């Protein structure tokens, strides 16, 4: 049976629709033309309500071994939010690291329908897929950690791009992941020796390859394979005073590399690399400078990595950063070394309004958006749960849409936010089109052609918000974006009045990279027989692990 969404005020940036009252038609999980609807169709009247495509979160740590480690070593986070079961949903718990099912339900209640897990260690891919299987309501996929993979680094050191390309293709297919993630390139590899790198041209320990070489190499490979998404980069020197210069240099490092469809480099949670000053005492915001740089650079996209003032659980493959955070706050700490591939750290953290650095961090993330002219280049994220749980998106949207809401928050923050950040003087208020762009334009950056828009043939993922087009009251905006009026996932009504009414399953998205295994067979055998604790035959994730899945694209033929 079809579905008619009638009289809604539709926003669809990809198709240039800016708040037009129109009807939408859904059949067999896709957006269709009225003539293709068929005879039987249910109608939902959305008069006075705002219709967006389903939200696409480009960067949220929702599944895998580090997320589960966060759950296991933070039982106190679990008691901060407990949700009983209903007739259609399972019970769940967890504030910053919610259980798998609760993650799916909560995203859906906020109108999100697709989420990208941005840090899958290849060796832990099986675990990640097992958790994907238990996250309902969402389509999801993972980005594969390759920036500190020993074999990748050795190929790049030798300048052997051809074999490196096949290694990357083999890894992506073996792990059923979607794209290349690069975290503190060279830094995490050095962390195995207790070291880090301090800039783009600082060679990593043992391998003697620079972060610049790793980034350039992976971008070359990404383009050569024709992958749907750019290289997804967590910059070096993250979370340190003065690190905005590293971000600027990183943006320049891919100068001259272009792609007609999308960016070639996506810098993630840029807020954490938006700091001036040379110590915590002189710490200041450089959000505006970064926005100006992004506007001037054609081949870059970013996501924000905003912080909100909540207790949360930081987790990243940037092992040395987590150690640094552990030393700063004296909180408990987990450190992993994923053999030959990556590292991970997990540390609890609370962003506090009365701490000057935290108040400035809050400003950096918002300033980057408010100062940017081309909002198609930036996407909303909290780097869940690093800057705060994804449930804070509603609050972020309120701050972006309402100067009054920002001013009310600034009044409660450490005074440093007034002198060391520009946000107090920023008048811009985003409208609903802008919000739609920064939360749904992600699909374009990810190369998900059927997501993030409502054109004919798109996946019927739709979010309906009960909000006036001119609404400027922060609390009203926050309420509307925290609890959707309706969420439709794959053509099925999933959420009504902010509550899950149908626990639909989502799909796992993957790409067929068609690796030329013959080119790397000798290296595979050497690496697995000599060093890995897992045999080559047991390493790839079988298709059975994916549950419902969709192959989004095949390797570029060129």
């Amino acid at each position, binding site marked *: 049976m079809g579905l008619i969404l009638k009289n809604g005020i539709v926003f669809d940036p990809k198709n240039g629709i800016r708040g037009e009252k129109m009807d939408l038609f859904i059949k067999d999980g896709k957006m269709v033309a009225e003539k293709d609807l068929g005879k039987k169709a249910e109608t939902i009247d959305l008069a006075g309500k705002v219709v967006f495509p389903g939200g696409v979160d480009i960067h949220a740590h929702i599944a895998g071994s580090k997320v589960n480690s966060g759950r296991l*070593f*933070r*039982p*106190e*986070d679990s*008691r901060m939010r407990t949700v009983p079961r209903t007739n259609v949903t399972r019970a769940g718990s967890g504030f910053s690291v919610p259980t798998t099912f609760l993650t799916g339900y909560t995203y859906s209640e906020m109108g999100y329908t697709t989420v990208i897990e941005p840090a899958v260690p290849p060796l832990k891919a099986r675990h990640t897929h097992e958790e994907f299987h238990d996250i309902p309501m969402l389509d999801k996929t993972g980005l594969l950690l390759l920036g500190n993979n020993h074999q990748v680094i050795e190929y790049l050191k030798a300048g052997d791009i051809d074999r490196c390309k096949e290694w990357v293709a083999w890894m992506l297919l073996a792990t059923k992941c979607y794209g290349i993630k690069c975290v503190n390139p060279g830094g995490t590899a050095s962390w195995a020796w207790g070291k880090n790198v301090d800039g783009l041209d600082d060679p990593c320990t043992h391998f003697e390859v620079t972060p610049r070489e790793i980034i350039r190499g992976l971008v070359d490979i990404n383009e050569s394979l024709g992958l749907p998404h750019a290289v997804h980069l967590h910059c070096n020197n993250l979370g340190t005073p003065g690190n905005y210069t590293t971000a600027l240099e990183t943006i320049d490092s891919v100068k001259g590399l272009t792609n007609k469809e999308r960016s070639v480099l996506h810098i993630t949670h840029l807020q954490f690399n938006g700091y001036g000053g040379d110590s915590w005492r002189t710490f200041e915001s450089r959000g505006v400078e970064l926005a100006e740089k992004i506007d001037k650079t054609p081949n870059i996209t970013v996501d924000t990595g905003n912080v909100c003032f909540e207790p949360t659980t930081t987790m990243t493959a940037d092992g040395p950063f987590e150690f640094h955070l552990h030393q700063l706050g004296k*909180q*408990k700490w987990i450190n992993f070394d994923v053999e030959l591939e990556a590292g991970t750290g997990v540390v*609890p953290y609370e962003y506090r309004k009365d701490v000057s650095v935290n108040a400035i961090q809050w400003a950096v993330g918002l300033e980057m958006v408010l100062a940017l002219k081309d909002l198609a280049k930036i996407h909303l994220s909290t780097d869940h749960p690093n800057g705060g749980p994804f449930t804070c998106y509603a609050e972020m949207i309120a701050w972006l849409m309402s100067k009054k809401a920002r001013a009310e928050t600034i009044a409660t923050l450490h005074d440093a936010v007034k002198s060391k950040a520009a946000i107090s003087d920023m008048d811009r208020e985003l409208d609903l089109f802008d919000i739609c762009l920064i939360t749904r334009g992600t699909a374009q950056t990810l190369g998900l052609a059927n997501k993030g828009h409502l054109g004919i043939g798109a996946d019927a993922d739709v979010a309906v918000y009960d909000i006036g087009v001119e609404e400027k009251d922060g609390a009203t905006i926050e309420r509307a974006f925290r609890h959707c009026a309706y969420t439709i996932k794959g053509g099925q009504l999933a959420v009504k009045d902010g509550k899950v009414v149908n626990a639909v399953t989502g799909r796992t998205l993957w790409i067929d990279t068609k690796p030329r295994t013959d080119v790397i067979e000798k290296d595979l055998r050497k690496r697995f027989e000599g060093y890995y604790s897992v045999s080559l035959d047991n390493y790839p994730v079988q298709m059975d692990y994916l549950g419902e899945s969709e192959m989004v694209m095949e390797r570029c033929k060129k």
Partner: protein
Amino acid sequence: MKILLRSKNNVDDINVEADGVNHQLFGMTLAEIKKVAVHEGNQERTLSDFFDVTIEDEKGKGRLIVLEGDDLSKFKRIGEALAEGEVQVNGDGGMYCGYRMSGGRIVVEGNCDAFCGMDMSGGELVIKGNASDYLGAAYRGESAGMKGGRITVHGNAGVEVGSRLAGGTIVIKGDTDLFTGIHMKKGLIVIEGTAGPRVGAQMTGGTIVVSKGELMLGFKEGGSIKDPKIEGEGFSGDFKTFTGDLVENGKGTILLMD
């Protein structure tokens, strides 16, 4: 006002979570008190399913809840989040008795099960029998536990008494088991009997007064002190002072009776 909850002695194997038995009952009518939700496993029940409820001296100024019955230890979370008034348990107390209490007083005439007084921030918990493990401790994973108030145990206590203590006072008139005051930061623990092994492990602040017990190597002996007064409490006799736990660069104090 005195609210009498007489157990019907009908609790089966699954303990009953009676977290609604706290000061909020004082503002209710008899009918409302009977309907207060409790949980038996995942099933919601009412207080009157397990107790005969009566009110005495309804207009009196006193605020007292009395629990009576054969085995009250099957009722968990009695007095949770208590802010005022008094709860008297005429028998053994169940797990989590006095959990998160911020004021008022709870008196348990018998023994108490694990996690009693956890996360307390004020008020007083008196256990006239023995206390089990994790008395006045932090919730698992939390960096800070009890922050204020006072717990007195007339008998012995189990493992990890006052773990991650961040304020308040715990007095054990008997002995304690392993790891008393582990990770403690502030506050005072007094063990009038024998402290179990590894007392004060990884403590960074606060004071533990011990009559008898062996200290770990991470504590450095200082001078002696006579009739010390700590956080308003006076102690008679001669004590050796120790600082530690040096494993954590700790600046906690253990006073060991000489």
